[in-house]
């Protein structure tokens, strides 16, 4: 009996350690970035654009603007496709109309699963080959958003599917029994009920765009000017960190930008948790 207790205590000690180490890693990474980065942050840092070439003076205003554009444009491309796919896969997959529909579902499912496994540098390579070069869109917000959309479509599909599956079957039955067709049921009852879940998916995707570097490194160009159209190149905050760390003399600015980036991610995570908790509370 003592032996059993001993091994239990040993094992549980290891588990406690694992949990604590995970938190410590987070605290260390975030803490280090914040300690090194925060001193360089002032209001000016947010309101002025980078300038001065190699020395990279100024703040990160234009990179905030570009990041915002990237989020919006990418979501505009990805959200309808992602939500549409999720609706098809969850709401229409049980349709017994014919065999073709069933086959379509499994084909579509294969596409989604494959897409979810593609590494981001491949999206970058693909975006560079198709959008930047072949379609002649150049290094631009448009090229980068199209490539970025490929990255987040699977994220939106997965979260939307989960949200739709969480909608009680009774809602659908109730609506269908009143003579609504599939689409009316989906649009008027299922989607509104799943809205919170879908919005966490969209927030999550926005987070992915904020964090992504590899794709934009090869499709966005990296101009640190404020973009003025979809065809402008630009530099997101994450890309700015890379440029600052790798191409300029302004290492401290890289830390400050990274600190802003991490703070933004923390805020987004809090928002997601708030939305999820509200769903759980319902």
């Amino acid at each position, binding site marked *: 009996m003592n032996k059993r207790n001993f091994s239990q205590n040993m094992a549980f000690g290891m588990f406690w350690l694992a949990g604590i180490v995970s938190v410590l890693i987070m605290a260390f990474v975030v803490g280090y970035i914040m300690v090194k980065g925060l001193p360089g942050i002032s209001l000016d840092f947010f309101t002025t654009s980078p300038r001065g070439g190699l020395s990279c003076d100024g703040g990160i205003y234009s990179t905030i603007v570009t990041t915002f554009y990237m989020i919006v444009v990418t979501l505009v491309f990805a959200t309808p496709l992602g939500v549409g796919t999720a609706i098809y896969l969850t709401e229409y997959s049980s349709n017994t109309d014919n065999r073709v529909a069933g086959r379509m579902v499994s084909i579509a499912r294969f596409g989604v699963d494959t897409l979810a496994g593609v590494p981001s540098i491949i999206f970058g390579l693909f975006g560079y080959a198709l959008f930047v070069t072949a379609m002649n869109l150049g*290094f631009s917000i448009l090229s980068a958003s199209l490539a970025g959309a490929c990255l987040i479509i699977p994220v939106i599909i997965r979260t939307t599917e989960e949200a739709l599956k969480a909608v009680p079957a009774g809602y659908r039955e109730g609506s269908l029994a009143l003579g609504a067709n599939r689409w009316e049921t989906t649009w008027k009852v299922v989607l509104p009920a799943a809205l919170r879940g879908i919005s966490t998916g969209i927030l999550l995707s926005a987070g992915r765009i904020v964090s992504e570097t590899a794709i934009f490194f090869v499709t966005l*160009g990296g101009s640190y000017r404020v973009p003025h159209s979809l065809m402008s190149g630009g530099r997101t905050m994450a890309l700015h960190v890379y440029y600052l760390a*790798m191409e*300029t003399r302004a290492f401290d600015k890289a830390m400050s930008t990274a600190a802003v980036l991490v703070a933004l991610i923390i805020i987004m995570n809090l928002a997601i948790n708030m939305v999820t908790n509200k769903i759980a509370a319902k």
Partner: protein
Amino acid sequence: MKRNISTMIFLAGLTLMGACGEPGDGTSAGTESGGIVEISVVGSTTVQPLAELLSESYEAIDPNVLVTVSGGGSSVGVKSAAEQTADIGMASREIKESEIQDCPEIVVHTIARDGIAIVANPDIDVDEITMEQAREIFSGEITDWSEVGGTAGMITVASREEGSGTRSAFEDLVMNDALISEMAILQPSNGAIRTTVATTPGCIAFLSFGYLDSNTKPMAVDGALPTAENVSAGSYPVVRPLNMVTYGEPTGAVAEWLDFIVGEDGQAIVAAEGYIPI
């Protein structure tokens, strides 16, 4: 249903059209919209920061011009100019024969010269090496600092990656036919090289003049320190051109900006950034 099919055909058509490429307007002149002329500049990440600085100074003089500078690398720069997807391409190396053959219309404007310095970790007590020693160090034949007159300690070579303009210039000018050691740490940018050299004991690398600072120790090669004066005087041998490439002779705002760069004010900025004026 019909509408869906036609939308799909439309989209497919759009893709194909894009794939065929749009013909440009003939010369590099910038794109005007709403009274602002936009000049798109694409290419070498070495030239990028300099071009950004030059664009900011120029916009202060002529606020109707907006220059957007994107990276992508020297080859992308030349290609973008040749295919007219950008008004100006940047290249931190000589333009290759093959590139001129592919597009004879391109015009090369050298805007500055850049020395490539050999730099070492500040703790290294060697101040000077010969060209021959440099070759042997970077090719991996010399592996200890004692072999070049310093305190014994392993040499760690760092280098830019294959294809980089800085590396190919360094290979042409220093390495002759010898190859840079496979053991070298490869970093994808000058900034990363500088950080590597500054923090890695025993490290040696080559670095564009623009990136020199007190964190790294520049080495004299054949008796000449890597300074702009020595380059101008012809005593420092490792130098490459920084180029802007246009499709045909530039006109309009593009020409004016390039004139500004090679003019007095532009060259002053070039010199202030550590590069060598032409």
